[in-house]
């Protein structure tokens, strides 16, 4: 009813009069433990990562570094591993696209067509998570292997260039798509479910064509979910190295994650390079996220 009274009510209402009174210290008390945790184990480590990325190697002592402002680390890391960076972005982009193509019909069917099967479908999407994702990725390696059913069939039909799936970019992208698919489905489903089906019906009423209704009404309404899903798929895919490690080859499909991992664990004195690559990856992705949030106002993420 009275819109202005509601605005007034809205100011104090969610907090209630009591909380408003104690508002000065109560929120900080609630925030303190969680924020402390995030500062000590998220912010401080990032700062440390940044300082490591600028450290220099101690000549003659592999694995020892000294504090420095060696920005050349970034330059050398990025020039040396540019192909890996490019692959990360390309593979993650492709996986995001394929995941969207698979996820949208699934989310749409769940929201509008599934009826009482909706709960079951939800379980089916989440349940595979509980079989360790490493196990499932390894399973894909066997399924897609040269002697496996997929490669054999495609080779029989002569439609598989090169004759292999595993050890190629196709397997890596397929693995990424598979592993992060639920992150695409769930936000899209959430936004479609929130949409009022009557609006879509009204759309169907105004435009006879089903596809036009979809394009002009349904898709825009699910846009927040699509954007959230895109980010939730792209971000982990870009930083992943397990799929490239298990499904890809040693040479042509390594992503930036593989480089970071091996610089940390296998290459003596690789810390600054790995840190520089990590920091660049994070900066790139955060920039992407903020452009997204700015442009499309994906408030739900925040």
């Amino acid at each position: 009813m009275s819109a202005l009274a509601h605005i007034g009510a809205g100011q104090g209402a969610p907090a209630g009069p009591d909380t408003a009174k104690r508002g000065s210290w109560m929120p900080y008390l609630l925030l303190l433990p969680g924020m402390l945790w995030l500062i000590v184990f998220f912010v401080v480590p990032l700062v440390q990562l940044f300082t490591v990325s600028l450290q220099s190697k101690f000549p003659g002592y592999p694995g020892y570094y000294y504090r420095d402002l060696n920005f050349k680390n970034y330059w050398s890391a990025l020039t040396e591993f540019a192909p890996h960076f490019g692959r990360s972005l390309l593979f993650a982009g492709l996986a995001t696209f394929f995941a969207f193509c698979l996820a949208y019909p699934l989310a749409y069917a769940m929201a509008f067509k599934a009826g009482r099967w909706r709960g079951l479908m939800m379980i089916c999407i989440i349940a595979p998570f509980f079989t360790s994702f490493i196990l499932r990725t390894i399973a894909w390696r066997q399924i897609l292997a040269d002697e496996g059913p997929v490669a054999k069939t495609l080779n029989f039909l002569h439609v598989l260039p090169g004759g292999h799936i595993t050890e190629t970019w196709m397997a890596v992208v397929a693995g990424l798509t598979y592993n992060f698919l639920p992150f695409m489905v769930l936000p899209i489903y959430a936004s479609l479910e929130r949409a009022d089906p009557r609006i879509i019906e009204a759309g169907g009423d105004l435009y006879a064509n089903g596809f036009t209704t979809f394009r002009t009404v349904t898709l825009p309404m699910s846009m927040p979910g699509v954007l959230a899903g895109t980010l939730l798929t792209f971000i982990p895919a870009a930083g992943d190295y397990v799929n490239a490690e298990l499904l890809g080859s040693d040479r042509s499909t390594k992503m930036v994650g593989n480089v970071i991992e091996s610089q940390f664990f296998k290459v003596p004195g690789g810390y600054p390079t790995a840190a520089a690559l990590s920091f660049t990856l994070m900066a790139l992705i955060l920039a992407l996220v903020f452009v997204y949030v700015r442009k499309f106002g994906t408030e739900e993420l925040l």
Partner: protein
Amino acid sequence: MAGFREATGDLRIENVTKEFGDFTAVDDLTLSVPRGSFFALLGPSGCGKTTTLRMVAGLEQPTRGRILIGDTDLTGSRPYERPVNTVFQSYALFPHLTVRDNVAFGPKRRGQKDATRMADEALELVQLPHLAARKPAQLSGGQQQRVAVARALVNRPEVLLLDEPLGALDLKLRRQMQVELKRIQTEVGLTFIHVTHDQEEAMTMADTVAVMNHGRIEQMGPPAQMYDLPKTAFVANFVGQSNLGHGRITGRDGDFFVADVHGSTVKIPAARSAVDSGDILFGVRPEKVHLARDSHDVIDRTRKVALGDDMKATVVDVSFIGVATQYLVQVASGATWSVYEQNLDVDPIDLKPGDPVWIEWDPAHAFAVAAEGAEIPAGPVLGDPVDMPRDTVS
């Protein structure tokens, strides 16, 4: 319950102002509601009626002023410290509790040992004892509404606040619940304060109606009195409809003011005029106006009705609404008037747009309100001239 303030007596709101930033929701409001009465706060969206209610409940604190029950000052106390309960607009039933637990919530918080029995009695009062074990989501809108009433009533508050409690119900259920609420109020004898934007609802239920606008009370009184004699242009059109026209008082004739309205000379009982000189808004309720088919008719009638005022007019629109027929007619000045004619006879409607008619009324029914700062709520276009394509009506 710690801090609970027992208080009995009339509800008194003294010079209460509520500001939200730059916006003044309630402006220096003073009001007294006698104990045991059914009081309605009527007004359009944003007039401050809900804010007033929330301040009585303790959900908002006034920026200035005091709120008392009897002699106990409740200003500054918390909602749970006041002998006041609210029936919320959306009912606000607790979805995780059964109907019985919802109703027993208040008594339990106050440490009543027989809270469940009290809840069952309250459900009896609203005729829902058979639904006590259900969850609110399993009830219809009307049933939820009754549970909300029971949940508030069970506490026997000194004042019961109803925030548009019937707004979500369909028309038929609304009428039914109006009667029901009135019955309950008579039965329990508590002070009810009912906030609504529906003037019909306010008129049928309340002993006293206060019309609010812009955080102030425009007029307050028994419904019939307010309808008969609106004191402001806003009330004249918010409570029912009125034909209003700009005019000017030109003189006095005994107990009547004489005024010029759009070139016609009319009379207004002096006691029914809110101003005694200068510019006025002259008004007559549509059902107090009669239509005459020709001048003979008028002459006959004017002879019978000694003080009849009349004007020549042209029919613009005829709409049949069952118990009555509403005519929109245009007078010489270009103003449009609304006229209700009760359908007493079975005669077919004999007038059609373009027909010339005479409108007349008993000056005893006329009233006048101040023209300065007059605000006429949106509604059927009545009164002042509007651009009307002449050729289509003449």
